């Protein structure tokens, strides 16, 4: 009796999971019916789309890398220290997740018109540049990476770091020699989430970096550009190509992470 109830529970959970996956399969299948072999060939042969693909891969990887570099110290601080105003800081770190993407782009655009922004632009130009694409992706991706790293450190006992301190480590050495090796899978997960979020980023890039072909055009921008000229088939083909690309990259990164 107990077994059958347990099996019924697993069956119900499996059905919920299968239902969700089926929903996504139907969405992608319906989208695929708008795509033809010719449109796929056009996508592969198009110089603009090849450039957008390459730029997406490079900018997403850079944004995810920078997001991870920020997420590790911030996540560690938030998980290990109690301080006054922590709940406010916690809320502030989530602002990029809550804000509409277009607003993030608008904020970036306005910031780089301020005196501080103009000084930064003199050193590294961001507005309507490739570096602006990376920055727009980074701003949102970093918030997700920080959440992931904070969760990772919260699930790891602080005790080994405490012991490391008594064995002669500074706090930085305890982080480097003990906490980071223990958090390596969380770091892979944070990178994956940041990368995936960056690949899907559109609003801030459009507003802040523009949609200039062969310059700041990334794959989501291509979908928008193709749609705006009524080329639905190409837009669909690029969309499906993005899905394929995301799945391949995430599977490869996660498989690598399992071996770490």
């Amino acid at each position, binding site marked *: 009796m107990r077994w059958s109830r347990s099996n019924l529970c697993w069956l119900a959970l499996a059905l919920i999971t299968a239902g969700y996956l089926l929903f996504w399969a139907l969405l992608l299948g319906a989208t695929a019916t708008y795509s033809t072999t010719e449109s796929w060939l056009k996508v592969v042969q198009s110089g603009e789309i090849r450039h957008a693909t390459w730029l997406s891969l490079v900018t997403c990887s850079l944004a995810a890398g920078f997001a991870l570099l920020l997420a590790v110290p911030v996540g560690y601080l938030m998980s290990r220290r109690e301080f006054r105003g922590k709940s406010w800081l916690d809320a502030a770190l989530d602002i990029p997740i809550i804000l509409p993407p277009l607003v993030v782009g608008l904020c970036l655009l306005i910031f780089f018109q301020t005196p501080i922004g103009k000084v930064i632009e003199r050193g590294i130009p961001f507005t309507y540049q490739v570096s602006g694409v990376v920055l727009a992706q980074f701003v949102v991706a970093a918030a997700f990476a920080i959440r992931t790293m904070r969760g990772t450190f919260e699930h790891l*006992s602080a*005790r*080994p770091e*405490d*012991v490391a*301190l*008594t064995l002669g480590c*500074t706090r930085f050495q305890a982080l480097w*020699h003990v906490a980071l*090796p223990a958090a390596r899978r969380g770091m892979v997960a944070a990178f994956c989430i940041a990368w995936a979020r960056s690949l899907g980023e559109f609003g801030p890039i459009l507003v802040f970096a523009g949609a200039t072909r062969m310059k700041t055009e990334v794959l989501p921008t291509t979908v928008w550009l193709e749609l705006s000229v009524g080329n639905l088939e190409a837009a669909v083909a690029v969309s499906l190509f993005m899905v394929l690309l995301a799945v391949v990259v995430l599977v490869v990164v996660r498989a690598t992470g399992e071996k770490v």
Partner: protein
Amino acid sequence: MIQLDQLCWKVAGRTVLEDVTVSIPANTYAVLMGSTGCGKTTLLEILCGLRLPTSGRVVLDGVDVTQLEPRERGIGYVPQDLAMFPGLRVREQIGFAPRLRGVPQDELNERVNRLAEQFGIAPLLDRLPDMLSGGEKQRVALARALAAQPKLLLLDEPLSALDESMRAEAVSLLQRVQSEHSLTVLHVTHSSSEAAALGHLHLRMNAGRLEVESKA
């Protein structure tokens, strides 16, 4: 010698440790008992510098170390869960402190091998923590703490994860380690038999206050 001078620790308006004052002479094996949640672990954490007391002083061999960092105190700490470093082999766990201090490789290897022999874990040197039993982890954690050559060793219920047959063996190992390394030990336990077998000095924590029960 360890001197705790009127130590207090309060958190969120609650007094956990109140006016804790005691002297533990050098080369003494002190045993601390008390009910769960009475502040024993907090006291150990204050001693090794992981927590700052609300008031009072910690004096080691005549030096006030209350404001010193844990790494500056020369205190070894073995927590209840033994806190193995994930991903480091037994050899690296034991060699952790000497490597940090820049001990030359030959001397480091010699120190690791000597401790591994002493604790009977030489065949385990290339194993990861996941491949060790509770008793083996306990020996590795002790060897790792001693590799830093501490003057004082703090043990937080180090035998709680061992079964009855292994516990007797571990008790004799701790006695041997204390006398061979001329250590001052403060050992937290719930076991009266463990306390009777090991302790030269018996302390009891009661509602945040420390009492000396008996001296051997």
